[in-house]
């Protein structure tokens, strides 16, 4: 299957467009519905991170969805979410947070993606950030 590419403005609900698309693709390749829900949730988090944190002047993200394996034997899905922001320092972002309730309020997006997907890979520099997430069937 050809890759699906979405160029989406950073506006309310656009993360759902990306998420729904991932869901439809997951159903198409016969993924289990819990797996599909996990992908949908991870895509939402990756998009809102870009919307919230990228600091991008170019207010859009490019989401690409690829089916891994062949059309006859799909093995999973890879999704990348790219923004054109200022990037960030991964090590700082991953610093352990405090354990008080008030500390729980932010710093979740990346951990949710890690927890729900099989693999996450991030590239970030002054030209922007790309989060690549993979889930196998």
């Amino acid at each position: 299957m050809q890759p699906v590419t979405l160029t989406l403005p950073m506006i309310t609900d656009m993360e759902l467009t990306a998420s729904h698309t991932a869901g439809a693709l997951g159903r198409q390749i016969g993924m289990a519905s819990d797996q599909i829900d996990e992908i949908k949730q991870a895509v939402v988090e990756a998009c809102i991170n870009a919307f919230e944190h990228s600091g991008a002047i170019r207010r859009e993200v490019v989401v690409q969805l690829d089916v891994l394996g062949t059309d006859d034997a799909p093995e999973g899905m890879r999704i990348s979410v790219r923004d054109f922001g200022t990037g960030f320092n991964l090590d700082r972002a991953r610093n352990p947070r405090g354990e008080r309730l008030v500390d729980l309020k932010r710093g979740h997006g990346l951990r949710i993606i890690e927890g729900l997907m099989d693999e996450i890979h991030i590239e970030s520099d002054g030209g922007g950030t790309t989060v690549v997430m993979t889930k196998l069937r």
Partner: protein
Amino acid sequence: MTESLKLTVDERDDGLAVVYTDGYINNQGGEEIAATAYRLIDAGHRKLLLNLAETKIVNSIGISILIEIIEKMLEIDGQLSFCCLTPTIAKTFHIMGLAQYAQIHETEEEALAALT
């Protein structure tokens, strides 16, 4: 889509109220739930149950706002519980550390039994 969140409130006896969510809990949805919770607290309720059966997706900003309700509840010696989460939302709550501060039940009966 926002295709906004719908909330239904069922105020019961003993200071207990159940809030049913239907739809996406994002920033705005979280704010709406918080506004409803604070209204219920002002009306004297000390036990709140959030039934998320009709919510299929959330985002971490929306859920962060729910954490503020938990804080408020701890302050006033009240209790906020959750029930009927999809497996993915349950996972997300655990990853976010919510499970330490709020009870999460599979069914509404179970949650009500634990609250009353």
